[in-house]
């Protein structure tokens, strides 16, 4: 009902306003979007595909490129799994329990989005690098190398992507009615059973969405990783760092081909999340049932 009236209003508004003012605004907006978004995207797709799919395959099949892509994918996957568990747990604690310092903790969740990722990388190097006491101890006593190695990449990604799962699960958990949990408790279900069978199912969709978004974000991460992992081919070089190296070395064609693969993964994930998202107007909890 409202949509019909607002469309009518809009039509009236469009007729009443000065046509050249309207066209002016539209021209500015569309030109801006074309130059800023469509043109860059078109040029990289054109450049990446200039030798066809075979060219892309050849580029990513080089040992160094293959290793970089594989490292990116597996570190992102490990991060996403840990993030899914810890993010859900954090959201649960923040929604269901009240304790002193809870508001502060809730604010800390957003810190990773507020800090430039390069600075994130620096903080991790200071904490775990060979110069620091902790870094030296971990390496000498336990033989764990964090910086310039995959664990550092995973920690950096965990830091950068922490808010994704928490902030997608939290609002849904808040909107959940606790009647069903109480009913399950009355019927004698244990806490774990209640969580698994009653609380978790409606959280599953936002949990998957948040996890996939954090994975997509991790694929392209550069600032934090280039500091933490360095640029050691076949050891700690991720796809984004590899692309950077190829551009610097004057091989934009190889860089474009690898970029196409990264873009395809990221876009695929974002589209998947969009598809999984509950339709507008329906509360997520209802959708999940």
């Amino acid at each position: 009902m409202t949509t019909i009236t607002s469309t009518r209003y809009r039509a009236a508004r469009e007729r009443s306003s000065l046509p050249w003012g309207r066209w002016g605004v539209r021209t500015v907006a569309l030109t801006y979007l074309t130059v800023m978004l469509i043109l860059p995207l078109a040029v990289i797709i054109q450049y990446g595909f200039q030798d066809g799919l075979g060219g892309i395959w050849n580029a990513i099949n080089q040992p160094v490129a293959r290793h970089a892509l594989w490292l990116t994918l597996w570190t992102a996957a490990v991060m996403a799994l840990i993030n899914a568990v810890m993010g859900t747990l954090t959201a649960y604690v923040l929604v269901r329990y009240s304790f002193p310092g809870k508001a502060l903790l809730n604010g800390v969740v957003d810190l990773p989005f507020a800090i430039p990722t390069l600075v994130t990388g620096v903080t991790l190097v200071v904490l775990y690098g060979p110069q620091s006491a902790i870094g030296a101890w971990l390496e000498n006593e336990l033989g764990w190398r964090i910086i310039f190695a995959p664990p550092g990449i995973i920690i950096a990604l965990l830091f950068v992507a922490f808010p994704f799962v928490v902030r997608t699960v939290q609002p849904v958990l808040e909107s959940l009615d606790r009647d069903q949990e109480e009913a399950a408790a009355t019927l004698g279900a244990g806490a774990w059973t209640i969580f698994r069978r009653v609380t978790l199912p409606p959280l599953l969709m936002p949990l998957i969405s948040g996890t996939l978004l954090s994975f997509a974000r991790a694929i392209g991460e550069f600032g934090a990783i280039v500091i933490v992992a360095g640029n050691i081919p076949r050891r700690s070089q991720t796809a984004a760092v590899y692309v950077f190296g190829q551009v610097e070395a004057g091989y934009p064609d190889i860089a474009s081909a690898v970029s196409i693969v990264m873009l395809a993964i990221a876009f695929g994930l974002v589209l998947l999340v969009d598809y999984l998202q509950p339709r507008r107007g329906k509360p997520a909890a209802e959708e999940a049932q």
Partner: protein
Amino acid sequence: MSVALDSQLGRPATRVGIWRRRILIGIVVTYMAILILAPIGALIQGAFANGLGAMFTALNDPDVLSAFWRTLLIAAITIVVHVICGTAVAWVLVRHRFPGRRLLNGLIDLPFAISPVIAGLMLILLFGRRGIFAPLIEATGVQIAFALPGMIIATLFVTLPFMVRELMPVLEAFGIEQEQAASTLGASGWQTFRLVTFPALRWGFIYGLTLTFARALGEFGAVLVVSGGVQGRTETATMYVFRALDERQYTGAYSAALVLGLFSLVLVMGAEILRRRER
């Protein structure tokens, strides 16, 4: 607290329940302390390790100062462009109907999904020496790649969604009734925007600007790729941190990183607090 909550639930506050609560809170607090707070604390400690004097000397270097000024300049220009073009984009996407509108609406978020390195590469492919616009650049003599204009375009690209996404929901919620009333009373299109629409969008503008500015300050990958990061010429604050770490000038690297981190943090958290207060 837990006893009160549990009794509200009509469940007896069992010993097991209390311990479960304590353990879960403990795990989350420990996780966030180790993952997020410990590194930040280490950076603060590392920056101050050689005293305030060393920190000041490191930051007072002409190259460092020029890097910070360059960053501020780029961020300021980015804001101005996004206030004008971002508003136009949000306006057109909400108020106009034309073929391809939904596709464009979907494309707006792309810069968030694209790696900043790839964003920089796209601009090199457009404006680089062998890029599509190379003849145009040669003819006009305006250098874009490896110069300030390219760095501004790169920053505009990565910050594009903020302003548009802040303004669109506000514009949608505001509706057009008040604007119609104004134009019925004889106001011109620009008067209506300035006196009716703009005040309603004020908070959207402030958040959009703050987030854009914070992101512009911290941008690294895209500007690095597009500019090459020539010391004293195209080096921004983030690139200085990167170079200083490489050259083992730790006090300078940590201090500059701390300044950048604090600045962004104050901006983003400030916007967040304002937003919560307003609601």
